């Protein structure tokens, strides 16, 4: 936060800063500096690994931790089975990785680490990241679709029962809606995460500036803002889960299109 300017910059939290000494790393001319964003990807991966590791005891009668991990895998498994059917099982590793990676990133980014002087960074609030994940999901849909159905996959753009004269009109619309999918998928997560974090930051600036302006403003502005923040924090936890779920759900629905056409 730009404390030296005496005010809170709500966008500063999204700034990507290379961690000291890695600014110049590059591959084939492309910069690959190890940034705070990359650091939080690393943290997410490690925490997720530890979480899933706790579920690897493979006991017949599961403990609490194993039960928790199994309920996540079961959740993804059920979602894929409900949306795709028996063939959905082979996508569990991908959708599980996607869901858990986004979920943990969202939740870790919400940790109140600023209290102890660290700066949590939510890399899912960057459309570079969500966009890449969306394109990845979209590519899987395309690859599976063309692999399984060949050129017949294009029949996806002609819904069942379309009257013949309507096809020239319907097909482009369907095609556009299909091509918009990766954008809507990536932007949804990015916007939801960014909006939540900006809102929290703005409210926190109300708390800080209001309190600094005197006791009266502190009670009038700071306290209500603080109470609102507590509520919005809970809401953000919910949004973190929901957005991860939506991303995984939409991915599974799109894979269903590729797997089963219509």
């Amino acid at each position, binding site marked *: 936060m730009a404390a030296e300017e005496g005010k809170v910059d709500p966008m500063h939290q999204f*700034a990507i800063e290379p961690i000291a000494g890695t600014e110049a790393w590059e591959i084939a001319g492309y910069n690959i500096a190890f940034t705070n964003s990359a650091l939080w990807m690393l943290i997410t991966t490690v925490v997720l690994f530890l979480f899933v590791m706790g579920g690897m005891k493979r006991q017949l009668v*599961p403990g609490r931790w194993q039960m928790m991990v199994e309920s996540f895998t079961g959740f993804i498994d059920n979602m894929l089975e409900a949306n795709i059917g028996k063939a959905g099982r082979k996508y569990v*590793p991908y959708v599980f990785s996607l869901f858990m990676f986004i979920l943990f990133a969202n939740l870790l980014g919400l940790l109140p680490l600023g209290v102890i002087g660290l700066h949590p960074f939510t*890399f899912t609030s960057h459309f570079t990241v969500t966009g*890449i994940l969306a394109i990845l999901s979209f590519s899987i849909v395309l690859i599976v679709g063309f692999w399984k159905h060949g050129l017949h996959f294009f029949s996806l753009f002609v819904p069942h029962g379309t009257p013949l004269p309507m096809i020239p009109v319907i097909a482009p619309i369907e095609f556009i809606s299909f091509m918009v999918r990766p954008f809507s998928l990536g932007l949804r997560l990015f916007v939801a995460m960014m909006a939540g974090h900006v809102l929290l930051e703005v409210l926190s600036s109300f708390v800080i500036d209001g309190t600094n302006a005197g006791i009266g403003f502190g009670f009038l502005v700071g306290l209500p803002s603080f109470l609102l923040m507590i509520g919005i924090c809970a809401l953000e936890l919910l949004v973190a889960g929901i957005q991860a779920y939506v991303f995984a759900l939409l991915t599974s629905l799109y894979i269903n299109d590729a797997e089963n056409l219509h």
Partner: protein
Amino acid sequence: MPQIAQLAETWSSQFFWLAVFFGITFFLIGMGMVPKIMDTVDQRDSKIADDLAAAKAARDAADEQEEAWRVRENENREKARGIVNAAKADAAAKSEKTIAAAQKRLDKKLDEAEIRIGEARNAALAEIEAVATEAAQDIVQRVAGIKVTKPTAAKAVKETLAHG
């Protein structure tokens, strides 16, 4: 907005590190660990299903055996009732026979006793006649001084006894 302002300088780093860490997540966790966890769940589910099936089979077997036991038990009870009834009938027949035999013996004894009583009475009557005859002879001799022969006296006595 840093997402746009920094896009040109950071997109390659974002892409690279996301590929690295999401790759690790996918290959290590998604492909390596998740199938094992799901396998454990499947094993548990199938174990539970097997155990339930075994329990159901055991219960069915128990029901069958109970049914068989019930049938056997009913047969046994029926048999036992037959035996008891036979024993009862046997005992009744035997006691009837015993009672009949006793009755016969008693009847015989009664008849014998009656015969003996009749004989005794006849003997007594003969004795009385004889005594009466002698007494009559004696009385007649003493009162009338007539000697009556025994047959005459006896005849008189008999007539008197017959008339009362």
